[in-house]
């Protein structure tokens, strides 16, 4: 009875309201949605009053004082932009200049593919938007295809391909026993997937594990993906952030390009340029030739138009200002290296502290893993203890955002981890 009431929404209430039939809400049956597992962590952290609290939850960079950073090159770019440019609509495909510079980062400064105009590329709403646009494109033009997603992965990947209505499967990736890559199982999954499947690959600094294939392993992965005619889609959210060198971090992509895959790439400036809230990124699809690239780009625009019409201009101006000025670009590369180096330093410090405390467990993986995240191996129960007893906030899968670790809190963090694991 109650369900019928909620469904029909046509029950008349006795209370009269002038000029309208009073009815119950259409939305009575709407269930409260579960909190986002990642963003919910920061909400909880903010609500905590403890002076000792540590946020190693969301993957946003912090300096050694635990403060968010706006890069100097970004501040300079904004000074140049303010007051000087209008705010007219960008084309549906976004800023041409920004896209050009962005492709160079991924495909190579002097890439023949760019010169041959074989890459269909549009500005996208950071990494999320780029993945979503690709997923919608995949659904529309390869409606019978499915996407293989690594286990584990950034939780939102599942949401994105689900909302695009692309069926998803998973492939082995993380090896919990070694806290490294489950390479043999991954290759098996690639071989066993139906020909022409789509594979989602993290180009570098895998989120959440920090476990990346070696160069040799990437070559093998490329070989097997090629043999099966699979489509390789790279999510590259951390270029520059993993090793400190954007060229090095693009190695996996360059291997696939050498092997003549027609790949797709989602690029984001959220982390490596600290432009998180600007929502600035790029989706590119490598095509056979220029004609096809023109066609694919036009279709990507057709998907963007009914979603947001055209992308935001401010972040695009910041990126193109920086990347098209050699001095600003140099400065940016320096600042990226500083961020990456600090994180690498914190990995060393955290592992060192745990070993000094005489932890019975191996913490080698802290320095083996790369990028913003460390997959600690902590269980959800241990994570809960860290939060409840020590006011340390992280996602329950045991993922630690190293960017939230500082010289000021690394000892406290190590102590706490030792307490719950000894």
């Amino acid at each position, binding site marked *: 009875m109650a369900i019928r009431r909620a469904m029909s929404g046509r029950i008349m209430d006795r209370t009269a309201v002038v000029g309208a039939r009073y009815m119950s809400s259409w939305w009575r049956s709407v269930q409260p949605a579960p909190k986002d597992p990642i963003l919910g962590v920061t909400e909880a952290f903010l609500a905590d009053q403890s002076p000792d609290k540590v946020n190693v939850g969301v993957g946003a960079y912090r300096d050694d004082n635990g403060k968010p*950073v706006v890069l100097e090159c970004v501040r300079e770019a904004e000074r140049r932009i303010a007051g000087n440019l209008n705010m007219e609509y960008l084309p549906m495909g976004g800023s041409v200049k920004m896209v050009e510079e962005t492709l160079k980062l991924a495909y190579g400064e002097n890439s023949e593919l760019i010169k041959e105009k074989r890459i269909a590329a549009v500005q996208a709403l950071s990494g999320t938007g780029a993945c979503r646009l690709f997923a919608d494109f995949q659904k529309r033009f390869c409606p019978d295809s499915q996407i293989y997603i690594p286990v584990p992965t950034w939780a939102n990947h599942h949401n994105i391909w689900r909302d695009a209505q692309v069926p998803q499967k998973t492939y082995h990736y993380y090896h919990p026993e070694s806290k490294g890559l489950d390479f043999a199982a991954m290759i098996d999954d690639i071989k066993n997937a139906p020909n022409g499947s789509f594979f989602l690959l993290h180009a570098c600094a895998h989120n959440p594990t920090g476990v990346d294939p070696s160069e040799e392993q990437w070559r093998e992965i490329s070989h097997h993906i090629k*043999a099966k*005619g699979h489509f390789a889609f790279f999510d590259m959210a951390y270029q520059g952030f993993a090793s400190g060198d954007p060229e090095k971090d693009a190695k996996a992509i360059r291997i696939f390009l050498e092997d003549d895959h027609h790949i797709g790439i989602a690029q984001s400036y959220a982390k490596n340029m600290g432009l998180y809230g600007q929502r600035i990124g790029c989706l590119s699809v490598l095509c056979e030739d220029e004609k096809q690239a023109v*066609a694919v780009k*036009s279709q990507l625009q057709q998907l963007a138009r009914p979603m*947001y019409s055209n992308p935001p201009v401010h972040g695009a101006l910041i990126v193109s200002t920086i990347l098209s000025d050699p001095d600003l670009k140099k400065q940016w590369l320096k600042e990226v290296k500083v961020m990456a180096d600090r994180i690498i330093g914190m990995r060393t410090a955290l592992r060192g502290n745990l070993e000094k405390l005489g932890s019975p467990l191996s913490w080698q993986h802290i320095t083996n893993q790369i990028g913003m995240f460390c997959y600690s191996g902590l269980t959800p129960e241990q994570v809960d203890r860290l939060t409840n007893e020590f006011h340390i906030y992280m996602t329950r899968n045991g993922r630690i955002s190293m960017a939230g670790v500082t010289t000021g809190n690394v000892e406290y963090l190590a102590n706490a981890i030792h307490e719950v694991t000894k």
Partner: protein
Amino acid sequence: MRPEFASPSSSSSSSADRRLNALVRHLATASMVSQTAVAFSPTSGFHGDSVFSHVVRAPEDPILGVTVAYNKDPSPVKLNLGVGAYRTEEGKPLVLIVVRKAEQMLLNDKSRVKEYLPIVGIAEFNKLSAKLIFGADSPAIRENRVTTVQCLSGTGSLRVGAEFLARHYHQKTIYIPQPTWGNHPKVFTLAGLSVKTYRYYDPTTRGMNFQGLLEDLGSAPSGSIVLLHACAHNPTGVDPTLQQWEQIRQLMRSKALLPFFDSAYQGFASGNLDEDAQSIRMFVADGGECFVAQSYAKNMGLYGERVGALSVVCRAADVASKVESQLKLVIRPMFSNPPIHGASIVVTILKDSNMFNEWTIELKAMADRIISMRKQLFDALRARGTPGDWSHIIKQIGMFTFTGLNSKQVEFMTREYHIYMTSDGRISMAGLSSKTVPHLADAIHAAVTRMS
């Protein structure tokens, strides 16, 4: 051991060479991997076929395509009356002074960071936007029955709202006016709704087909969603009178039709923010539910910053809160969280009473200039004795005028007079100036007298 090969970029790189190189590398590599021979399946992509080879080029967007054509034209007298972006008397884009001020304030505030916004955007932005459209004293706001989420301008707000409806509402059909903004049908279709139309514009009177509207909405299945342009209907510029709005409201409530307002021109139509929100406030005042997509693209000139908000007015506060949690699930896999820059400018302006006043003055100036262009065009056509009744030019409201010219006449005007406009006869009054009105009037006169 790894055989040495010349790197592909140094070779003459025909695509056949590329593929050959790749093959050779794979054959060499194969010896290092498992012993089983790797079979290159027919669909292996070995021949370099893209899985997207079959993708054909999409047609140009009809509205944005007008500007593309305009840009190609070398004529010194060309006039762009296509896309609905405001232009000054000098034909230049305008960034409002108060917006520049806000921009500088943000720039100078060193404490500002660029962190991710919450999924629903800036809380203050959402509150202020709701106040702006519903009125500061709105009972719906006082009773916490409104959830507002920051989205990417009007388009983004419509899309998020429509996706929510497709998931949670029992009726999956939305009725849109005929005609409407060209992008509306695609937004709703991609969101998973099916689209029907209701009569709206009467070409013979160049006004409202009110009878047709009442009939079509009256025969819509109960609970259907109805898209309403809050003011300054795009593309016709024809709005219902207040009395007509009241009739529409009564009809819709009696049939439990769900209103989805698109408010892209608040303040731009009459020059007065509250006046332009009356249709929406009427619906909210009766205690019922509705969706509102708000855009700051035109009225604050923030076009490319993509600033907007989706509001859902619910019957109860707990319902609004549940709705908000579900809106987040729509947003997260679409773009995670909205862009910060434009919304920060809006907050800076709306929360400061002086800046707010400055804004209303600049807004009124834009609206007044457009109203003045309408008058000038009307007078110019009358002075030329152009056949026909052109009073609709001054009766219609907002950025656009539906001239009533047919596509042949439009084509003629483009060819002979370098006037660029959409083929449905819509002109953006914002693209006119006192200097260019005579040229347009000449063109219309010629089109009407020489082509029928």
